[in-house]
């Protein structure tokens, strides 16, 4: 994918204080194949993108001539618009496809839709899908396209985890040793899964709290055949939120979908709120200056109290702002990489 633009990209890189990492990365599927160094490199680039977003004229020519398609098979506001804005600020041509009103309505398979986009010369496909692994299917079959996972089933949401880590680092100064408490429906959370990979790699301490019924059984009890050096083996689970939150630097509430009550995971929302709602009182047990985070969309008054969601500790809006910058950094990384984009990844 070396193009006549590469000089321009280089100039942009200097202009925007981007890291000088010659990335071979083709896809962003999850954070499990990111090293700590690469995560830090992305976060550094994100800082440069935040600077661009703060300019009077939010437009740089970096990705001029690149085509980015967002394929959303699940509803989304912030993630889709965030990717669209990220692409447009970098001057990419961004095309939005949703499953309704497209050939998906006619029963076209995900794979055939992907092949069609590849044949049209699309450079990057951003995909959200209700099934875990859908971006992997595309990545496996589309050698000429970069795939970014914008959320797949219960599996992963790597750009969310990166924006969460950027926000934490920005506010705390360092991720290493930070005590991060993730609260709520871990079982059904792709955000939690990607954060587990990312945070453990950069040396943060992760504590999961929430109802036992909404926790993967293998994290609750014995770790099965998990190897000791596996990142998930370093995660602590404490269902007593009042205890887990002590000394926390970050408290991240996860979205609780109301259907969890109807399918029997919870006796009632009332009991959930009593035991696991992130409140000002509970936050009082955390470290002074602890951050309150939420990947959105929030159910205020359920997993998080309204006053806390909009209070001084909340960095929820900063997460959204940083989300655009993180996605700019990733689009830059995939399109500007000098590595081999043709063929399978290692």
């Amino acid at each position, binding site marked *: 994918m070396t193009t006549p633009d590469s000089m321009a990209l280089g100039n942009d890189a200097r202009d925007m204080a981007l890291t000088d990492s010659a990335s071979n990365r083709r896809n962003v*599927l999850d954070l499990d194949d990111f090293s700590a160094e690469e995560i830090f490199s992305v976060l550094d680039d994100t800082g440069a993108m935040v600077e661009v977003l703060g300019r009077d004229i939010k437009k740089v020519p970096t990705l001029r001539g690149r085509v980015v398609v967002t394929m959303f098979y699940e509803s989304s506001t912030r993630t889709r618009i965030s990717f669209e804005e990220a692409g447009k600020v970098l001057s990419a041509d961004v095309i939005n496809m949703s499953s309704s009103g497209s050939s998906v309505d006619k029963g076209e398979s995900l794979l055939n839709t992907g092949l069609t986009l590849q044949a049209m010369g699309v450079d990057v496909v951003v995909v959200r899908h209700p099934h*875990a692994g859908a971006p992997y299917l595309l990545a496996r079959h589309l050698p000429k396209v970069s795939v970014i996972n914008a959320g797949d*089933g219960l*599996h992963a949401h790597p750009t969310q985890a990166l924006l969460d880590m950027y926000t934490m680092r920005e506010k705390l100064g360092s991720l290493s040793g930070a005590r991060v408490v993730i609260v709520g429906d871990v079982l059904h959370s792709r955000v939690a899964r990607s954060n587990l990979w990312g945070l453990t790699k950069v040396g943060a301490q992760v504590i999961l709290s929430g109802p036992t019924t909404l926790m993967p059984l*293998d994290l609750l009890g014995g*770790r099965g*055949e998990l190897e000791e050096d596996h990142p*998930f083996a370093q995660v602590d689970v404490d269902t007593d939120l009042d205890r887990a939150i002590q000394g926390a630097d970050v408290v991240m509430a996860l979205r609780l979908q109301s259907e969890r009550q109807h399918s029997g995971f919870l006796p009632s929302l009332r009991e959930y709120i009593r035991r696991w709602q992130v409140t000002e009182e509970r936050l009082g047990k955390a470290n002074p200056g602890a951050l309150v985070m939420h990947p959105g969309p929030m159910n205020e008054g359920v997993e998080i109290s309204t006053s806390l969601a909009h209070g001084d500790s909340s960095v929820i809006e900063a997460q959204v702002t940083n989300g655009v910058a993180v996605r700019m950094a990733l689009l830059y990384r995939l399109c500007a990489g000098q590595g081999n984009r043709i063929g*399978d990844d*290692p």
Partner: protein
Amino acid sequence: MINRTYNRPVLIKGARIVDPGRGIDVVGDTLTQEGRIVSAGPTLTPSNVPDGTHTIPANGLVVAPGFIDLHAHLREPGYEYKETIATGTQAAARGGFTSLCCMPNTDPAIDNEAMVELVKRRVDSDAVVRVFPIGAVTKGRKGRELSEMEELAAAGVVAYSDDGDPVYDPNIMRLALTYTLDLGMPVINHCQENGLCCGGVMAEGWIATRLGLPGIPAAAEEAMVSRDLALAEMTGGWLHLAHLSTAGSVDLVRQARQRGVSVTCEVCPQHLYLTDEWALGYQGDLRCTAGSRNYDTSTKVYPPLRSRSDVEALIAGLAEGVIDCIATDHAPHEVASKEVTYEEASFGISVLETALGSLLSLVHGGRISMSTLVDRLTVGPARVLGPSFEKYATLEAGSPADLVLFDPNLEWTVDTSQFASKGRNTPLQGVPLKGRVVATMVDGRLVHQDFGV
């Protein structure tokens, strides 16, 4: 089904003869003539061999009774794009299987005499190995009313099963086990408590957690195994448990056996060789980095591939004899049904052509003896099918010449493009195996030979 014009006599010279039904494991000669075994054991002098005999030099090879598969999906009628009786039995011949029992989850289901006749007619014209149909337990496999089980018996089915689905209703299962008391054939159940599966697509555990895929807990199988064992104990009916996959199921069967419950059971090659780690897409090697190979849909199978400790318990149960036999659950699928997301993909693995190669790893690894392996592929399944099938599971003089000749040490790499089966869906694609079928004979006629190796 089988061409009745017999080839000339065949002498398999110098092979290791493994015939567990007779307790024989010796190097010697095997002679077949006019579709029957003449002799299998002692070395024959030329005077004992008829003129015109075709001799196969077989030093270093193993000859055994042809394998009997209690559990195969031949897909015909209704799903001929996945497999046919012709392609499925050709795959069987390549895998050393001389008899297959075909499951009735066709479209329409094999739940009445006319459907059995249709299958038998297709078998007569297309099959290269013996095929014995299994009849549905309930009409249309819907789980509500018993099929006409006696009529099915008269038409020639060898067992009953709604496989693909369990018999969900415990009272229907009770009645099936009771109604078959005087029919002399087992009810085969696919044990899966759906209320515990919750849309699961792979074994519950940390691999499923990592991949974000809904898990199927071991208890989903064990809960129904427990139920069925209690029903078999109460009714005295003959229960055969299909494709056990968990350590807990092996324990339940062991305990029931000790109480005298009439239960038999099977395990599949895939559950003795593969674990859930293979869903990560790099042949179970966890040292590899993650990448786009994750979510290998060819590992999606029911019951799901489970943990290493389950595999160990199944191997122990097989060695001990708690598990009577190995059945393939050969479940071929067309490419399109696997080139989708893991959650959308069809359940099933194409097994017939890799079964022996993967199973021999247990022998090479010293986990079970060659004789035990052959027993579980021949004597074991014949016992489930009844006394009239014993003749297919022995090399005794006078028995039908159904046999397999294999090289236990031949190393080869699985290449699904060479499969006879239409189903190319196996996680073993590209995987090296040790041990391969050289020839398969049904009724004295070579139905597969691969001497070029």
